[in-house]
């Protein structure tokens, strides 16, 4: 019953989506308003039907209706209720349904928010949304049906992969998907503007906030993924340049480039073709990511199920790429920029350089990701590309980006005068140089990390200097106190200060990456009781070991104490879990996190419990905690940029656009 309701909702929604493609064309042909109204009704209908389908699947998961194959494969009777709900995105079919659900939520929102505005653009915007939605609904209806029946139903389900039973599993996929789907909004407006041939700045101003929201979710999705990898997978790392990770990261790069380069177009009416290309690429990469993950064409450590959907995604990717870039080429005559760069020393060129760095990083990562395929197609020999390639090529680009985060927001538009440069950068440059020298004197002697720390300090100093000056000026002019002056400043320049806070968050992440990439230490030793392993400033003493029978597995845990100088920590107990159905044990690493470093402990083996010997692998990873703090700062910055502090100002802004 549930399965029938769900499946028919999807099939009917598919036909509504087809209508959503036809009706705008009829609106254009006949000029009759009724067709446009029916497009909007179609979007609302899709929203209701897909919500009903998703609710059916969640209901089936929660009530463990094992007559549905998807439920039987992704829950058990013992699964706690929240992991039953998250089973919605535990495997391919449900994830696609979640994606489609988010898509109709976004298209419904867009259709409602702009119900009285953009009368010329909207039919085409909704046509693009309906096209994307029709694609996903076709996949759900015909290729990867989440409501497939299993007959006879099994007594109990198979359940999620144990690694997925983690609280981050609740957040990571929906965050990432919201980011992916959110990029459909600027893409749809861009395409609509191209179709009607009105390629001024209107579509950019309209979609700016949507793009920031999508960017925010993309960032968080990637960060939470890294965090999950770090604390659950037990290998002490957060990023491995695996194809699936790259697939999630790649759309972030053009999206970030786009957020910066649209400011150049708003100010100077330049880079029109470039901006359109960036958003097409960003949107295509969200499809490419899913294609890569689900087609099984590249090998990945992430064991995702693949199915017949690969061919569907590739076909749709072909339609999107050829259609969008074809349209762009067709309209290119209208898109000539209206101004040229005045000087290399200007904010435009800083933003352009930022774009070049981001797109180069994208190209590098893309090439590395598909290189095994490329080399086999050309030479017949598989060559896989590992972390050293990605690190050595992207690190310099990312350092350049950190530097530009300091320069871009402060340098003048058009042409920076010597005074402007001196005023904004002299002190920060000197101070960051001093930071670098003192780090060098202390003990940091390697070039790249030293440069990384220096540039990070530079960004922080420029932001600090700029804010202090602005606050001072405000105090003098308006006679406000420091706190009040800062509050007014932020309220009146939300975009700017929100952006600066996000930059600070990125700097903290860069700090965490630089520290952990360059100064991690790893040691392994087999210890008897009372013996200890020295690593970095710490000693880890083995205190004992025990075996425990748990409901689902047998657990062997070893207890360690961290000694640092005279102080002794509490007990830490990394463990190995032996599941009856699995050949090798699943490790459970533990770590102690401080602002200076994380001490990560992995039990990699033991003799029989009676003999009391354990093999411990320990890692010291400096500054990792700052990555997660940086994530928190980005949340703050985004809220600062988007929160409607000043409603009247926001409305004026939107009205100007309309």
């Amino acid at each position, binding site marked *: 019953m549930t399965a029938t309701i769900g499946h028919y909702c999807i099939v009917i929604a598919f036909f509504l989506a087809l209508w959503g493609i036809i009706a705008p064309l009829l609106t254009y042909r006949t000029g009759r308003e009724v067709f446009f109204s029916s497009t909007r009704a179609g979007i609302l209908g899709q929203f209701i039907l897909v919500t009903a389908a998703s609710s059916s699947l969640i209901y089936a998961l929660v009530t463990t209706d094992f007559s549905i194959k998807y439920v039987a494969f992704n829950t058990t009777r013992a699964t706690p209720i929240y992991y039953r709900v998250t089973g919605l995105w535990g495997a391919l079919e449900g994830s696609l349904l979640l994606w489609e659900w988010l898509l109709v939520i976004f298209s419904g929102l867009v259709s409602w928010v702009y119900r009285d505005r953009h009368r010329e653009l909207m039919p085409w915007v909704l046509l693009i949304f309906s096209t994307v939605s029709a694609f996903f609904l076709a996949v759900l209806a015909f290729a990867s049906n989440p409501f497939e029946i299993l007959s006879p139903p099994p007594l109990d389900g198979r359940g999620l992969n144990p690694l997925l039973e983690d609280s981050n599993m609740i957040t990571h996929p929906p965050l990432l998907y919201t980011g992916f789907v959110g990029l459909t909004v600027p893409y749809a407006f861009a395409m609509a503007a191209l179709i009607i041939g009105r390629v001024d700045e209107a579509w950019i101003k309209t979609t700016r906030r949507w793009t920031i929201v999508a960017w925010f979710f993309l960032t968080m999705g990637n960060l939470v993924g890294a965090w999950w990898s770090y604390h659950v997978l037990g290998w002490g790392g957060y990023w491995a340049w695996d194809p699936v990770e790259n697939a999630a990261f790649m759309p972030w790069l053009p999206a970030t480039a786009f957020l910066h380069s649209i400011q150049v177009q708003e100010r100077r009416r330049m880079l029109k073709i470039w901006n359109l290309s960036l958003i097409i690429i960003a949107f295509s990469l969200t499809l490419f990511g899913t*294609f890569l993950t689900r*087609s*099984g*064409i*590249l*090998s990945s450590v992430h064991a995702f199920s693949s199915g017949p959907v*690969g*061919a569907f995604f*590739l076909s749709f*990717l*072909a339609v999107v*790429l*050829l259609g969008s*870039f*074809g349209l*762009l*080429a*067709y309209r*290119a*005559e209208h898109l000539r920029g209206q101004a040229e760069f005045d000087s290399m020393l200007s904010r435009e060129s800083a933003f352009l350089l930022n774009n070049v760095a981001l797109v180069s990083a994208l190209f590098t990562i893309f090439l590395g990701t*598909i290189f*095994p*395929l*490329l080399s*086999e*197609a050309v030479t017949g020999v*598989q060559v896989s590309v590992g972390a050293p390639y990605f690190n050595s090529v992207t690190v310099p680009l990312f350092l350049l980006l950190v530097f530009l985060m300091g320069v871009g927001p402060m340098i003048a538009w058009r042409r920076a005068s010597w005074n402007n440069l001196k005023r904004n950068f002299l002190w920060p440059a000197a101070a960051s140089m001093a930071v670098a020298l003192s780090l060098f004197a202390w003990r940091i002697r390697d070039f790249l990390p030293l440069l990384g720390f220096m540039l990070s300090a530079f960004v922080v100093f420029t932001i600090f200097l700029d804010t202090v000056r602005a606050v001072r000026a405000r105090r003098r002019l308006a006679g406000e106190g420091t706190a009040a002056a800062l509050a007014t400043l932020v309220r009146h320049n939300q975009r700017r200060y929100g952006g600066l806070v996000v930059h600070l968050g990125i700097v903290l992440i860069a700090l965490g990456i630089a520290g952990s990439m360059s100064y991690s230490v790893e040691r392994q030793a087999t210890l008897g009781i009372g013996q200890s392993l020295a690593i970095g400033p710490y000693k880890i003493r083995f205190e004992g070991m025990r075996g425990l029978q748990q409901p689902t597995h047998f657990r062997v845990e070893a207890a360690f104490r961290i000694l640092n100088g005279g102080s002794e920590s509490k007990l830490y107990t990394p463990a190995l879990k032996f599941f009856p159905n699995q050949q090798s044990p699943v490790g459970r690493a533990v770590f102690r996190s401080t602002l200076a470093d994380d001490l990560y402990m992995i039990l990699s083996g033991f003799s029989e419990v009676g003999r009391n010997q354990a093999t411990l692998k320990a890692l010291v990873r400096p500054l990792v905690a700052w990555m997660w703090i940086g994530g928190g700062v980005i949340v703050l910055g985004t809220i600062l940029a988007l929160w409607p502090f000043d409603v009247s100002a926001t409305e004026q802004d939107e009205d100007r656009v309309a």
Partner: protein
Amino acid sequence: MWRRLLITLGVIAPLLWLLAFGFTRDPRYISSPLIGRQAPNFTLKLFNGEELTLDQVRGKVIFLNFWASWCIPCREEARDLEAAWRRLKDADVAFIGIDIQDKEDDAKAFLKEFNVSYPNGRDPGKIAIDYGVWGVPETFFIDARGRITYKHVGTPDTATVMAKLQEARRGLVSAAEGKGSYQPIK
């Protein structure tokens, strides 16, 4: 405009072609480094109780087949292999079957069902590893000098079996592996 459209197509089409090419291959698959090298020696305890070592049959062209009773493609090929063996057994060819990751009773039932008459035995565990087997069936062709001349992953058809045995007889080493229907080992 046409020029721009052509450039767009020229960039996008090869990329799409490359991704489509990905469907034709299995990324986890790694070509065997053994082709052209000496076949690793082994001692196999046969189901009839005798022992067979590879060295005993040196000088003949060898058809070495890894299989398991739970493997569906192995069932598909079993009759053809037996037929090929009956046609060739008076020539200078030796067929050897090695059963891997299997239960002894199931394996014996399989051999009985298909009337397999060439020597077969169970892998004590090491032979499949020496030959880098990661699924069944896999077949190695070995020439009279003990070199592996060809490897076929999955079910080979009779024509391939005959042709590759002929090449092995002449000492020709194939450049690439062949592929047929296949099941990864557990």
